[in-house]
């Protein structure tokens, strides 16, 4: 067993090296950078500046991402729920075919599409005006936080829906039939029987989406240039225009804390569930 064990440790070395060099080192470097000034002296000044200039944007980022997560959860439950409990095979196959498309569209292209779709004179408003649902003088553009949320939800719902629908399809159908047998409506079955059984998968999807949305630069940059903006835009600005890596690193540290909190929340939930079983 001894030599075998050594060989297996040896086999993991390349992978560990790649992780250490390409992930842990740059991450540690930027984390450390958050606590140093340009001369390399330890300081909290970067965080002071970040707080002074970007506290509103930090709150803005959290709200946008959380609102998006809630909407993504509702939409993916609705899609997965219809695919699992729907009774029209045709509607199910059309929905199953359509909902995945945004998965294959990059964020930047999605943002570009949205600019032409939800702008004041964009396709959405013009269509609504054409059908007489809106008056031309009533229309307003959505190229602000609402546009970001719209794009995030549009782009991330298919991903979470794919996971959730897969988990729902893997459920024992009899647990659904047992509820139906006792008289539960389809909505009740979805809320009380199906969703609780796929809640872990849903949580994983949402945590992954949370982290993804926290790191997207193109969407907030293209859809909402004006203040307030998201942290990624601020970081890009600090680096590209001001050459201020310290503040950018401090903002990165804040982002990391947020995603770390999401990951911790997910892990804790998972551990509790395991302990419960």
């Amino acid at each position, binding site marked *: 067993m001894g030599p075998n064990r050594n060989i297996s440790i040896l086999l993991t070395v390349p992978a560990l090296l790649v992780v250490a060099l390409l992930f842990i080192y740059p991450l540690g470097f930027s984390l450390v950078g958050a606590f140093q000034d340009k001369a390399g002296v330890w300081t909290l000044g970067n965080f002071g500046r970040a707080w002074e200039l970007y506290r509103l944007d930090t709150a803005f980022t959290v709200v946008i991402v959380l609102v998006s997560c809630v909407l993504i959860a509702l939409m993916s439950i609705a899609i997965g729920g219809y695919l699992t409990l729907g009774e029209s095979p045709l509607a199910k196959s059309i929905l199953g075919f359509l909902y995945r498309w945004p998965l294959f569209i990059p964020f930047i292209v999605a943002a570009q599409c949205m600019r032409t779709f939800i702008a004041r004179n964009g396709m959405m408003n013009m269509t609504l005006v054409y059908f007489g649902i809106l008056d031309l003088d009533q229309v307003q553009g959505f190229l602000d936080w609402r546009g970001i949320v719209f794009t995030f939800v549009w782009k991330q719902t298919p991903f979470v829906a794919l996971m959730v629908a897969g988990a729902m399809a893997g459920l024992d159908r*009899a647990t659904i*039939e047992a509820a139906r047998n006792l008289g539960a409506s389809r909505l009740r079955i979805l809320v009380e029987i199906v969703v609780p059984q796929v809640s872990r998968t849903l949580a994983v999807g949402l945590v992954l989406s949370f982290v993804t949305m926290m790191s997207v630069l193109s969407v907030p940059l293209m859809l909402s240039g004006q203040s307030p903006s998201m942290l990624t835009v601020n970081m890009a600005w600090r680096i590209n225009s001001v050459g201020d890596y310290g503040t950018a690193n401090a903002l990165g540290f804040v982002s990391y804390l947020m995603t770390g909190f999401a990951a911790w929340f997910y892990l804790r939930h998972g551990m509790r569930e395991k302990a419960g079983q």
Partner: protein
Amino acid sequence: MSARLEIDRVEAAYGSTRVLKGVSLDVAPGEFVALLGSSGCGKTTLLRTIAGFMQATAGEIRVGGRDIAREPPDKRGMAMVFQSYALWPHMSVAQNVGYGLRLKKWDRARIDRRVGEILTMLKLDGFGQRNVTQLSGGQRQRVALGRALAVDPQILLLDEPLSNLDARIREDVRHEIKALQKSLGITAIHVTHDREEAMVMADRIVILDAGQIAQVGPPETIYNAPNSPFVAAFMGATNVVRFDAERAGETIQVAPGASNRAARLSRSGPQGFARGKLVAHFRSEAAELADAGADFADSLMLPGKIVQAAYPGGIWRYSVAVGDSQFLVDAPEKRALGDAVAVRVPADALHLYSAGAS
């Protein structure tokens, strides 16, 4: 409260495949009926059609005289126990059992009281707050039964509820379910592919074959007087011998054949039989092993030799090669492989059918 269930020429299909081909069955209030058949015979489809999870393409299903064939599952007054138990893993035992009552908008205190009664009845006192994932198979099965009984259904549907239990527990639970059903007086339809389970539990057994009812009757009738070679084989009479015979008064004269010696049997044979080929089925335990040269009156004698022996417990089970055929025969004594023997089948152990009957 139990109800009469009438199934009247019910048909059902999966796509273009007809699974039920006009099934008719009357189940009296409080009766326990087992649907028995091999895989794919339509027994589960029939149960699911009764439950409303599948739509009948033709026919009527009446409960207490009311046609419910087009009603949704929850409007049929039935509760089902599933093969996988189908308990909700995110709910406690009490929540599982009380869910149907919550749907009926009972108040909390009343639900608690009813759940308590059910748990006591099922010997699950003290388990109410447990998560169902912490229970053994037998306990889960009882929770599933409790969930179905809590809503006080007119008809209880059981879809192979014991097939996931190990053999020892299965026997206990069989008797528990049967006793419970009798004491509640509830009408029950039980799907199973286990012959013994059906025999032990049911008042009447329905044998299904290819979407049609092959025979209906009390267990002893189905066992002792199977009406077709299919039912005979399904009920364990798997040894088959074919011979030419002729009716002579109240007896049958059997001509010697490839497997059998000539014999006179005190049986009248299938209805209307005068002369021709007969197919006889018999069980391994109904036959005996005799010495090669021995001859017995009123018995079919099949001379051959032992090619295999096994000891399933209590008796020896031999495989005897006779001509091109092989027969299984149980015997108390140990014999050597290769021994020349004669299989003796007493006339009253033979199930006789005209060749050509299916």
